[in-house]
């Protein structure tokens, strides 16, 4: 069990890194929405799914060139996220949090069934970008180009996001609103607009994640988002939900551990998904707020 060569290990770690980066792009959306609304947005995984269909239609059906399609997919997905927030969450702003959660579950089912009606349940093949599938040799390690691009894209987007949050007026409004809506309003911050931006950004990142995801797992159907969505949610919780860096670290950790587990215990590979939950349970036992979670002490 402990006999392997270094290139083998690096090879697997490259795979784990790719998966981790994909998780991160989606997990950030969960964590941002949680950060500002204290809501687990169950519809996020279906936004991811819709995004895959948007891409499928732009490329495979309407034969748009990739750059145009990509832009279209990101914009459409971001707008979908904003629309969902406006229609399903905004009317419940003053309602108990449980209503919001139920609304999120409702939107999730709605999107899955809508996709089944619109796109049928027949699995489709996600359009591949040839160059990303190409194998490159890095010394003894052979990886797809994807394994190089995924981390680069993820890190660039992460840097842009952190800049947005920490350095801009919008980001300042987001941070203030995530602490206290009422006080934020009394600082002149338009809270509804700020929440819309949060959904816009989270959904756009999920769209990028979906397109790259499709390069690795090419079959799509209306329930394609469910498992990745759950995994990314787990990753966000592991990192400490509400914390963006936590979501990224949690995602990379989860992706890496999953791949390494399947590699070292190939007999158990069928339990890959269960493994993610086991990691979650273990982490929550020792660190209930996740790795980077804040422990809020609310003084009255």
């Amino acid at each position, binding site marked *: 069990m402990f006999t392997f060569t270094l290139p083998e290990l690096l090879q697997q770690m490259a795979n784990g890194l790719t998966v981790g980066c994909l998780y991160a792009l989606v997990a950030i959306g969960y964590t941002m929405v949680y950060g500002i609304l204290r809501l687990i947005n169950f519809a996020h995984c279906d936004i991811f799914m819709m995004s895959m269909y948007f891409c499928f239609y732009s490329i495979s059906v309407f034969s748009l060139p990739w750059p145009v399609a990509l832009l279209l997919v990101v914009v459409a997905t971001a707008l979908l996220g904003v629309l969902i927030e406006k229609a399903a969450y905004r009317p419940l702003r003053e309602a108990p949090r449980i209503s919001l959660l139920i609304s999120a579950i409702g939107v999730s089912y709605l999107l899955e069934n809508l996709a089944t009606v619109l796109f049928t349940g027949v699995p489709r093949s996600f359009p591949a970008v040839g160059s990303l599938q190409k194998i490159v040799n890095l010394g003894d390690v052979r990886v797809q180009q994807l394994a190089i691009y995924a981390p680069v894209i993820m890190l660039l987007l992460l840097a842009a996001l952190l800049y947005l949050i920490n350095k801009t*007026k919008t980001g300042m409004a987001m941070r203030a609103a995530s602490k206290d809506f009422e006080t934020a309003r009394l600082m002149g911050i338009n809270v509804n607009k700020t929440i819309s931006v949060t959904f816009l950004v989270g959904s756009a990142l999920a769209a990028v994640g979906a397109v790259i995801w499709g390069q690795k797992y090419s079959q799509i159907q209306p329930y394609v988002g469910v498992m990745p969505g759950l995994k990314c949610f787990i990753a966000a919780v592991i990192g400490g939900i509400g914390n963006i860096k936590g979501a990224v670290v949690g995602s990379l950790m989860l992706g890496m551990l999953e791949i390494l587990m399947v590699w070292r215990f190939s007999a158990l590979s069928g339990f890959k998904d269960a493994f993610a939950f086991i990691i979650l349970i273990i982490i929550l036992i020792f660190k209930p707020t996740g790795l980077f979670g804040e422990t809020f002490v609310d003084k009255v």
Partner: protein
Amino acid sequence: MQPVLRTEHVTMRFGGVMAVGDLNIELFPHEIVAIIGPNGAGKTTAFNLITGVYVPTEGKVFFAPGGEGGKLVDITGKKADAITRMGMARTFQNIRLFKSQTVYENILIGQHLHVKAGLFASVSGIARKEEQEMRRRADELLELLGLSRVRDELCTSLPYGLQRRLEIARALATNPTLLLLDEPAAGMNPQETVELTAFIHDVKEQFNLTVLMIEHHMDLVMDISDRIYVLDFGQTIAAGTPAEIQNNDRVIEAYLGGNTDA
């Protein structure tokens, strides 16, 4: 003289409970006006109605955005953030700073309003100058209010009196013409209260403000207020100068309940 704030028959019911009934107050430029009354009299509700946290069940609120000489506009039903942008700021009875952030960051959020540049300008660097300006103003404000020493400390680590002061500083960062203070002296000892009285007076002068405050410390109220409104069970039972209020029988009855050793 034109008032800067006026409420007309403002009423707030929560179900069957009338929290505020027929509130009619007027504030003139550069006044310090106090609202007093026993617990549950509807003072904080009145603040929430004026600042747009609640929408009144009946009545109207008018506010002059430009401060002195500004024209009164109807702000009833406007959102709290829109009203803040017009130049009204407030503090809370229970301090509501942005926890886990430093003193400086709290001030910057208050200044959020004055950053005009959106996302794209901030990337392109147009905003660099504006940001420097914002940071300079924040430091200036901290200096003026005697908070420079604790600039980079977590706001929750400050002593109570300074947290109150910071909350006022943060409200001032939104550049208001009207400042509402909800029990600024709550939980303060006599020494701190004396300091606060001077502080409110200074701030009012320096920032050219009109001040409306809720307060229980009668020494402070009588010392600093130009006029006083007295609320009881949501009704305004008296209004006048401190001297008039001190000799008003209804106030003495409502406030002290005939029991003078309170």
